[in-house]
């Protein structure tokens, strides 16, 4: 008999192979061929193929494409949430640290869309599922420098939830977006959509439009009116409150305080900073440059009167902006 520890004597190559082993070899080879044939065949008769056009596009250029798409898109309010309505068959999703630009979006059931996937910074994962049937789920990789366009169409109406499933840094767990598959009345899109009643007028809000315009970053959607805290001895601004499609808001975004008031910036979620965009001459406020998390606080006593504009670096494009006005 033949031990695996001894060198095999004689002409071991020509020894007969057991009949059943031979049959098994044939079955294995046949199964391998079947697996290959099925994959190939599915590209013809199957409805799910991770095949689409690829383009080499820099992250900066891709972000511009997504911006142009958002400008041309209309808006539909559903249950208090604003959804983008694509102008045409293209849908753009731009993943970034840490969110999905372009979401939420509403698409019509049964129609075919060209879904563009890309990222503005590092690798992210586009992991999408039907909220009412979690096993209807797929994942696709997003890699900076590449734009992937896949045709998609949805038959099942409902809300689809998107998370990131490629580790992309500290805010990875907070990356979330949705898209809605629903029929709806026609909504105006295209070059006219930007001037529709969605308040995105240029430089027409207070503070030179810092909060209301999307000239620098996105518009601060959570801004309604300036909160008057004159007379208060201590004022708190929450950092990373819910707003702008995620935990992307300062609350309140605009506040007036007396000279000499100490304002406490209180982080209630992770991955934010406070970058000073503009401050009066003589101010010594430098904000908080590092990204901090839940529980972090920063205090500053505002002595110099004037308007202090600030924003959160990773979430500027979501509209995470704020103002402290010292009177």
């Amino acid at each position, binding site marked *: 008999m033949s031990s*695996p*520890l001894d060198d095999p004597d004689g002409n071991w190559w020509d020894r007969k192979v057991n009949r059943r082993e031979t049959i098994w070899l044939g079955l294995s080879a046949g199964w391998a061929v079947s697996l290959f044939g099925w994959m190939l065949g599915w590209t013809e008769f199957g409805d799910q193929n991770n095949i689409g056009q690829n383009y080499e596009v820099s992250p900066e250029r891709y972000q511009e494409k997504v911006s142009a798409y958002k400008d041309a898109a209309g808006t539909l309010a559903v249950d208090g949430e604003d959804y983008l309505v694509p102008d045409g068959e293209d849908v753009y999703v731009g993943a970034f640290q840490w969110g999905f630009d372009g979401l939420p979006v509403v698409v019509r059931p049964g129609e075919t869309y060209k879904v563009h996937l890309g990222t503005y910074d590092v690798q992210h994962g586009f992991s999408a599922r039907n909220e009412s049937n979690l096993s209807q789920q797929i994942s*696709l990789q997003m890699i900076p420098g590449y734009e992937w366009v896949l045709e*998609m169409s949805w038959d099942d109406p409902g809300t689809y939830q998107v998370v990131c499933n490629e580790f992309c840094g500290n805010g990875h767990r*907070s990356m979330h977006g949705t898209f809605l598959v629903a029929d709806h009345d026609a909504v105006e899109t295209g070059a006219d959509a930007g001037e529709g009643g969605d308040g995105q007028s240029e430089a027409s809000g207070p503070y030179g439009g810092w909060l209301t315009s999307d000239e620098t970053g996105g518009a601060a959607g959570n801004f309604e009116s300036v909160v008057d805290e004159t007379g208060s001895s201590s004022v708190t601004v929450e950092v990373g409150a819910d707003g702008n499609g995620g935990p992307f808001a300062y609350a309140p975004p605009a506040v007036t305080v007396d000279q000499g008031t100490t304002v406490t910036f209180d982080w209630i979620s992770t991955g934010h900073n406070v970058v000073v965009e503009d401050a009066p001459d003589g101010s010594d406020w430098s904000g908080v440059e590092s990204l901090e998390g839940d529980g972090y606080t920063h205090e500053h006593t505002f002595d110099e009167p004037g308007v202090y504009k600030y924003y959160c670096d990773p979430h500027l494009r979501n509209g995470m902006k704020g103002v402290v006005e010292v009177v």
Partner: protein
Amino acid sequence: MFGFSTYEYDSDGFRECGVTGLRIHRSAEDMVKLYGLTAIVALVVGGLFAIAVAMTRWEAIGMLDPGRFYKYLSMHAWNLLIFWMVFMEIAILYVGGPFVLGRRLSLPSLAKVGYGLMLLGAVGVNVAIFVTSAPNNVPLLTSYVPLPSSWQFYLFAIVFLLGAVVAALPFFATIWWERQDNPGKTLPLVAFGAFVTSIIALEALLGGLITYVPTLAWRVGVLESLDPVWYRQMYWIVGHGTQQINLVAMIVIWYFLTHVLAGAEVASQKVSRIAFVMYLFFINLGAAHHLMSDPAVSAGWRLWNTSYSAYGAVVASMIHAFAIPAGLEAGRRAKGKGGGLFGWLWSSPWDDPGYSATILSIVLFGFLGGITGVMMGQMQLNMTWHNTLAVPGHFHATVVLGTTLAFMGLGYYVLRLVFGRDWILKPLARIQPYLYAGAMALVCLMMMYLGVLFGVPRRHPSVMDIPGTEFSFEAAQPFFAVFGVSAVLAIVGGALFALIAVGTLLFGDRFSVDTARVGDVDRAAADGGDEDDAVHEQSMRGTFVLTLVFLATFVVLTALNWYLLSNTWQIGA
């Protein structure tokens, strides 16, 4: 070196093993002990981090905050997937070469240099990950560009890989000198398998150097940028290549232990050797099955690549899937241990932890690890598996239920036959493989269900609590509960092995083949006899039934997965 052993060498430095009959030189044996013990240390360190990782993903416990989760996950991954595996595999090369061939280890000083570099690299990577702070990120396992990790991390990874290359050289030299001294002889199957392992290892390690050296250059600013698509392709040469080393090393151990412990013979030298050679040719481009859901890689190339691996490497694995139980069946039938369809299997030494670990490794690797690997390597099916928790489900089935369990089985016999010590806590040792395998199998199954049926993402600390939204994966909570409890049991099973191993080294009774029985067959009868006592004439019908059950399971699971895919929305032209 190392006073733990009870064996003595003759004046030339050789000793003969009373169980395997192998002629062993101390130059090789000292290195096997050194690398093997270091591997166990890595196993313990990685296992400790496993507690934190599992108890965080089981959010009912939620042990770690997100920041620490990613760090502890990186430590768990590097210590188990890389350091435990590669240190053990160098030890296995030194067994498969010098031990089996009865030779001294050639170039023994290189073995020590390699060890030093590997140790430095391993400690360096551990420290680099642990002290990571902004602007660096922890690497997890894959350190995908352009998310940067610290330059020290890339540097020590390079040092470790270089060390492994150096440590492999004495094995090559030993084989080289064997061929010079005995040009007409054929390498025994175990040595041949070890040789194939070492070539795959070299390819993987060189791929790692091609990946990490430019990445280090990018990180310190020498290279301005690094294409992330290029990085992914290059990374997976070492990323998957190392898994192929694990696979082939595991298979070598399967042949070795089924023979020593239960009298298995080689069903067909030709078929088994062809299967090993197929691994060599077909694994090279197999890395691309990690890129099935990537942009920038053409469909044609993805389809060709994932089936090239299907044609080659999977068929090779299916060959061993038959050959190893067939060898066990034929060998045992020839020694009078057969009886009906499965008598050869029922009568085998199930209370020997070295044996039970081996058989459990074969069965669970095949059914849980192998099948899922092939399925998620199919281009379109990959969409439902990619980056979900099902991916760790798959590779815990292959690397833990397969390779680690086999390495544990080998470990039990290294304790007896290299260190000459018998196991402490024998009743616990007997059940340890079953506890570990059973609990871990449940862990793997849960991770696969969570990933494919619920789309739960991998590398994520808080799917029950996603900031800024009401949506969560709450529906999956019951599966997480089973996962959590099973993980605790699996960790206990792993800790038990470490306890028995270390305890045996320190306190075990002297093991002697005169006083203790190894396996249940008479070894003298095993190695005598005519080569023409045709092994192929022994019935392999029991094996045939088992492999048909395996194939049926394979077909059914594949069909179910394609059905699930067909229920998602329309994607692609």
